[in-house]
């Protein structure tokens, strides 16, 4: 297990190294950050001074090596635009994004898995076909459009919920978070639903297919013959068997929720990392882009690790294989 974790760590370091090189080359190819940064009235001398202060007057290779050296010292550089540490900017926004991704994942898993299992059990019913059809629809509708529809209905027409923004003025266990007040939750609800919809559709289909497969196996027949009650049959026997593969998918999809919530964030003016990344790319704020990648890669690695651990807990066969 430990050596496994070490290998993972090494892997993500390699990914990080490659990604940072790609980002450096990419930003260089797009344009010069100074063009976005320098006020129009500035003279050539001021431009040169600013370029020197930011280290942009050096060759690309030198800039990259300097970056690596500073990174090893734990310093990822300062944002060109806000003059504050890039990593700090990302970490400031991280809680907002995690909140959103977590709520979306809760909605998707909390609804998707029971509905999927239910559909598999009542496979022949008309309602099942309607639900599965809706799930297919959920795949095909673009997220931003769903977001706009939700805003038009619940914010503009009915005025039940705010149209966007985040309210983290409430506290939960001493942490300022949207979960800390009703106002915070009301701001969170629409973006979370909008982000969850695609994953919900995915989980319904996946759970449905996996459950159908499990239901055909002999031990289910045996359990039913023994008179195991329906809730226990589905909630324990079936769930444990589809659990391992579902956890893997959920883990991966959670990472995707964190990394790709950009569209939802901009539709709902949610101040998360995605919005910061887009702004940084548009303004060629390279240190912020690199720091964002670091955080995302770290997050993905951590999620993968957790998913593997959960699989060990769920599946005794894996545990036995691990011991040998």
């Amino acid at each position, binding site marked *: 297990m430990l050596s496994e974790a070490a290998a993972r760590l090494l892997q993500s370091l390699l990914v990080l190294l490659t990604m940072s090189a790609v980002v450096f080359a990419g930003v260089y190819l797009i344009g010069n950050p100074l063009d976005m940064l320098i006020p129009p009235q500035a003279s050539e001398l001021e431009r040169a001074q600013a370029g020197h202060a930011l280290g942009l007057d050096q060759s690309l290779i030198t800039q990259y090596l300097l970056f690596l050296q500073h990174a090893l010292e734990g310093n990822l550089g300062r944002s060109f635009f806000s*003059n*504050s540490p890039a990593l700090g900017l990302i970490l400031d926004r991280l809680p907002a994004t995690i909140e959103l991704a977590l709520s979306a994942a809760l909605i998707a898993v909390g609804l998707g898995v029971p509905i999927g299992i239910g559909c598999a059990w009542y496979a022949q019913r008309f309602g099942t076909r309607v639900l599965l059809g809706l799930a297919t629809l959920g795949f095909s509708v673009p997220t931003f459009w769903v977001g706009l529809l939700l805003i038009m209905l619940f914010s503009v027409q009915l005025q039940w919920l705010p149209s966007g923004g985040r309210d983290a003025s409430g506290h939960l266990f001493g942490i300022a978070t949207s979960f800390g007040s009703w106002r915070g939750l009301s701001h969170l609800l629409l973006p979370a639903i909008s982000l969850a919809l695609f994953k919900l559709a995915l989980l319904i289909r996946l759970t449905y297919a996996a459950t159908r497969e499990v239901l055909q196996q002999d031990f289910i027949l045996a359990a039913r013959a023994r008179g195991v009650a329906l809730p226990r049959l589905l909630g324990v026997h079936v769930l444990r068997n589809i659990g391992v593969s579902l956890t893997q998918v959920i883990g991966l999809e959670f990472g995707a929720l964190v990394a790709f919530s950009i569209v939802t964030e*901009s539709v709902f003016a949610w101040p998360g990392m995605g919005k910061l990344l887009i702004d940084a790319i548009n303004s060629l704020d390279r240190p912020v882009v690199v720091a964002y990648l670091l955080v995302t890669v770290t997050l993905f690695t951590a999620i993968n690790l957790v998913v593997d651990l959960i699989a060990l807990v769920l599946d005794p066969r894996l545990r036995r294989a691990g011991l040998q």
Partner: protein
Amino acid sequence: MVCHSMTIRPVLGLFMVALMLGAADPGVALAGDTLRIGMAAEATTLDPHALNIAPNNAIGWHLFDALTHVDERTRLVPGLARSWHVVSPTEWEFRLRDDVQFHDGSAFEAADVIASIERVRRLPNGQFSSFVQRLIDVRAVDRHTIRIRTATPYALVPLDLNSVFIISHRHAEAPSANFDQGSAAVGTGPWRLTRFERGERVLLDRNEHYWGEQAHWPRAEMRMISGEQARVAALLGGDLDMIEAVPGSAVVRLRNDARFTLAQTVSWRTLFFHLDQRAQVPALIRRTDGSRMAVNPLTDRRVRLALAAAIDREAIIDKLLDGTARPASNLVAPGVFGHDDSLAVPRFDPAAARRLLADAGYRAGFNLTVAAPNNRYPADARIAQAVAAMFSRIGVRTEVASMPINVYLGRARRGEFAVALLGWGSFSGDLALRSLLATRDPSRGNGTWNWSYYHSADLDAMIERAFAELDPDRRAAQVRAAMHLAMTDQAVIPLHHQNALWALRAGLRYRARTDEFTFAHHVTD
């Protein structure tokens, strides 16, 4: 199964307690006395001397003042300086107000002005240093009078000082971070800082001791919502009282809805085409058979006039901008210092344009590529498409190269485009001409944005003279004459001046500003 609910209950209880604590947070203002404004771009820092970008300056004007202010029609008016006059051709005297205090209660004095100018000069990466570099000596005559010397006669000292925010001398050594977390964000402005939440919002409290006109609202919340649709939705849904930079697509809807009202005025931003007039033929201009040309057609004034006459400005404004602009004849907006009212908007006349082309020897036309950004100005890429069609109609077969602004600026600086779209805002015609059309001289900051590579010794001399002319009336005449020269030579092709647009909840009023700034203290009901 049973044991589960037992562990859940205490957690739920804690959750409820946390909710109640959350509700008691004093940081949450009551909705009624707070003006909630949706801003289009986020302030990156509250340090007023760091980055010279509009969103930062907008918030800066809430917390700080400058010696001179600019009114909603871009006229220079007294700010922290009661008055100013020329002592000798190279020396200015500014009389300061003696009834001003900072948010911390300390009195505003000459020492604060000197400390602010010094900080602007020294701050690493500070982007306002060009506004103080001509001030070679700044000294206090008494507590409320300062004298400023320049090396040569320089007329723009009062205007340049409009870009120097005055901070308390007690915070002259503070790093940017101290402004962001609030301890150094102590100004004389109409609002005091309550809290800066980077990327989300800025919370403000009214400065009850403001020397000027008091803000109408006790509190203001400036929310950063960069998405156009999200900003409009927040207003429609009643989450905001006002938004800036209303997108053209929402104008009709908001105008027809009795719950809202629009405020608009002509913006200082002018959109125009730079025309590469170097002797060397630009790579993006070809004969109709694709071969290279011997002479750059854009060096011929008749060709430039023909292109200007080929554009139907009214159609662009009507169809692409929903009427939210007006045709331009100048490089600066009407009302801005140096705008020449006698210039007419180039008349849309394709037949005349064809004749001009034929006179210049291009009866067969030529091939051209027009470049434009696609994420900077309202409808920018589509405007370029429309203009390309209009050019093609007079025989100049035109294609469009559009790209994101971050790519566009670098390529334009390297002189890769033949015809390139640019938007420019300026408080003074001579400033605009110096950056855009003065002969390129990087060491002096002349022609830094002269993508036309335009060169006229006459124009250069007129700009120089205007900068050194200390009499405002004579200077205005000189700037108008320079503008007249550049425009009649069709050095560039002006398209339109955008309108600055705000939408407010019905019953509110805003003094629409030409410089596009949104000031919470100028909203009344």
